[in-house]
């Protein structure tokens, strides 16, 4: 009989090393490709700190993080919330935090989940590969914090805070959805920063200095739009074109934009990322048990935690709070393995390429090449829809009642799957707003267009607040026009510069 790695619940640094080694060995057998791990043991207070800086190991100072911290602290102290077991940072080496209060079994769970699950996802998934530079993020965050601190010393905390507030309001609109950004490098950033500031300022001035010739006015207005094509990245447009911003303010816009871009893949891969990590901690730790390295007590603790993490209450339960990404992700990942290993006739009909294939290769392909939306559209099986008893509900404000549009039956599978996938499409969840035009010859006002989807309006109150922030950045009046799919402008909301 082999000896257990540990008995009892106390952890030591030697034990963490041994577990990491064993779990890493198994992960290697399954072909998980990861960044090196940097495991940091921290206390609960430090976890709260990490929590409230939204997972950035080095963050600039801003009141909103203080608000986050107070909220976390209050809920934690009242016992309303357990702290997350782990926070993992998409960097190279991959930083994972272990909380000192946890038992050895929980530490092992976190190591398997974060250091091998999330880590391999960060390294493999195309969105992370395309949009984030794990090698450079820590350096860049450090550059950002130092730069903003320097700005605070030079221009005052208040002035910096105003700019940051406005940028944060537009953070979700500070990402390039299609164009790949240039890789980050803190050293180059620092070197280029000053030249860029001067250069940018001259560019901006140029745009406004141009006195239009008479001939220009003769074209029809549509041809004189600026920018020529609508732009989706509002912060980028402001950074490059806002007429009144100081160079340091442009740099702050850029910093917020870069950080938004860094987090963008995480927002798009929640189900996949958590599903992948949960699948692997489950698989790796079970394997550890099969090899006789851990005892039953260890496994019971793991399973107890695992089942509560993947619990999905039904829609009519008091505990229902939306679809649990851990539950959906884990179920889908496990389902893919099942389809590969023991396919049914239905699976052969629906997934001819997957059914009966090598599960490791198939899952690796899925992990690398999808985001939540496309992953669900591609892999959600009828069997899983039946198991989760999924159904789609249409809420149309023109009708008095809600309508059930599809349930888990032959007619409904495709519709349910399509709707669930759409639910994870950020383009559907957030209003689609683009820069439409700048009035260059008149009042310099900026016009945005909200392309309405399924007649869903903008929230008038928050829109007004966001427009105020936009005016602060742009310096002149800003309006947002809500446009029907056929191009008719049906509503305009404006905020005038004072």
């Amino acid at each position, binding site marked *: 009989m082999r000896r257990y790695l540990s008995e009892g619940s106390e952890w030591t640094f030697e034990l963490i090393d041994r577990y990491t080694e064993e779990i890493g060995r198994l992960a290697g057998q399954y072909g998980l490709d990861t960044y090196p791990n940097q495991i940091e043991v921290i206390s609960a207070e430090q976890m709260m700190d990490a929590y409230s800086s939204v997972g950035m190991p080095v963050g600039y100072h801003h009141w909103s993080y203080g608000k986050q911290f*107070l909220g976390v602290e209050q809920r934690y102290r009242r016992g309303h919330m357990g702290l997350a077991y782990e926070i993992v940072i998409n960097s190279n080496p991959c930083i994972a935090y272990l909380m000192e209060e946890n038992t050895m079994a929980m530490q092992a769970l976190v190591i398997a989940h974060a250091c091998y699950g999330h880590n391999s996802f960060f390294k493999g998934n195309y969105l992370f590969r395309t949009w984030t530079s794990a090698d450079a993020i820590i350096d860049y965050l450090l550059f950002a914090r130092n730069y903003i601190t320097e700005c605070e010393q030079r221009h005052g905390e208040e002035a910096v805070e105003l700019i940051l507030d406005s940028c944060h309001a537009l953070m979700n609109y500070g990402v390039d959805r299609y164009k790949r950004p240039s890789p980050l490098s803190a050293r180059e950033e620092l070197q280029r920063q000053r030249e860029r500031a001067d250069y940018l300022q001259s560019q901006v001035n140029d745009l406004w200095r141009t006195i239009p010739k008479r001939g220009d006015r003769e074209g029809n207005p549509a041809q004189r739009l600026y920018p020529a094509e609508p732009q989706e990245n509002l912060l980028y447009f402001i950074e490059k074109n806002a007429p009144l911003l100081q160079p340091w303010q442009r740099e702050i816009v850029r910093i917020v934009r870069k950080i938004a871009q860094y987090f963008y893949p995480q927002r798009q891969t929640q189900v996949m990322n958590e599903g992948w990590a949960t699948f692997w901690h489950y698989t790796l730790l079970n394997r550890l048990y099969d090899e006789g390295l851990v005892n039953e007590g260890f496994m019971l603790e793991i399973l107890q935690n695992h089942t509560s993490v993947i619990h999905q209450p039904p829609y009519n339960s008091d505990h229902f709070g939306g679809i649990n990404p851990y539950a959906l992700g884990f179920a889908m990942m496990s389902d893919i393995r099942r389809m590969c290993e023991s396919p049914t006739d239905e699976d052969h009909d629906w997934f001819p390429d997957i059914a009966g294939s090598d599960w490791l290769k198939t899952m690796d392909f899925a992990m690398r090449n999808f985001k939540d939306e496309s992953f669900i559209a591609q892999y959600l099986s009828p069997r899983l829809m039946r198991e989760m008893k999924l159904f789609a509900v249409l809420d149309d404000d023109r009708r008095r009642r809600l309508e059930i549009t599809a349930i888990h039956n032959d007619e409904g599978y495709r519709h349910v799957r399509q709707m669930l996938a759409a639910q994870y499409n950020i383009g559907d969840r957030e209003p689609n707003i683009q820069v439409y035009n700048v009035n260059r010859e008149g009042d310099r006002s900026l016009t945005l267009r909200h392309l309405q989807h399924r007649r*869903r309006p903008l929230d008038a109150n928050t829109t007004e607040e966001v427009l105020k922030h936009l005016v602060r950045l742009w310096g002149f009046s800003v309006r947002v026009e809500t446009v029907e799919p056929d191009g008719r402008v049906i509503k305009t909301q404006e905020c005038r510069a004072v």
Partner: protein
Amino acid sequence: MNRVIDRRLNGKNKSAVNRRRFIRRFRQQIREAVADAISERSITDIDSGEKINIPARDIGEPTFRHGPGGEREAVYPGNTEYVTGDKIKRPQEDGGAGGSQASNSGEGIDDFAFKLSREEFLEFFFDDLALPDLVKTQIATQIEFKRVRSGYSRTGIPANINVIRSLKGALSRRIALRSPLEQRLLELRQELDQQQAAGDAGAQARRAELEEEIRRVSARINVIPFIDTFDLRYNNRIRQPRPTTQAVMFCLMDVSGSMDEERKDIAKRFFILLYLFLTRTYERIEVVFIRHHTSAKEVDEEEFFHSRETGGTVVSSALELMHKIITERYPGSLWNIYAAQASDGDNWNDDSPLCRNLLIEKIMPLLQYFAYVEIKPDEHQSLWREYLHVKARCANFAQQRIDGLTDIYPVFRKLFRKKAAA
């Protein structure tokens, strides 16, 4: 390729800066919440942290989001009853089918709650009262033990070495250890001199012996150290608690019909400030509440602030009651007695001279301090004028007209200055 790092020793207050910024940013909202909290708190309970609620909409971070309306289609788990095409009633509350989408995008109406520390709470409290900084720190300091020098000890840290004492010890040790040896050395030398004077051959051997002995004793004298570890003495400090003192604070308030809620709120803050000041000076404080209209009555705090009477005003009734309580329960040798009176200035005209006499003759000699505030009086009446006489006679009497919160502090100015000088 894996590294494990123990970060537990790193600082844990990384968020302190952000927390401070949050509080600075929402000063106004927090101040309002603190004002609410003060009106609900007991005077004696003022000296702790406070849970603060701010409406979430005031501190929201706006983003572009969808408002209610339009078509929404969402997928939910756990269907047990519906088939395609079913029409169901729209749930009233968020949270059920069809509703949770709206609550994701809509604004939460919940309050944002967090806890202010004691220091932060007091800071907000002081802000309204326009206290000078020195006074703020003075009365916000925690009670501390004083560390006083108390003799010397054999153990301690190098910084505490008492040089003179240590060298004295070394000197006496050197004397004690050397003197027998030096005595012996003297004897040996004398004998050697005698032997040399005698100069005979038999003494040759004896001389060598003596020289050997002298060398040995000198060597022993030389190895006695100038200072040794057990010579070291350290300054000893002990924690000495402040002298135990007790005080009683009388709160006197006119509760006739003309004292409205606003006046009572000002009065309450006035009493709180006096209480806070006293807690810094005394270990134990009792508070006695006396309210009066035409007759006076000792009540509890709840009744003191929240019940209302109508009718005329006879201030002397309260002063008499106070005097009675002092003589019965708080003999002057054991208690420091403070009194604070709040009123809108109304008094029955014939009563005011009576008050003056009562104060000057009977009460003021017993008191440490008497503070009288007239809150938003229409005009000064007889009581104010009579009290001016008292003020002229007694140095520990203060009176002040109060039109707003910032007028409260000047009443205490003398009190605090006395403390600062002490």
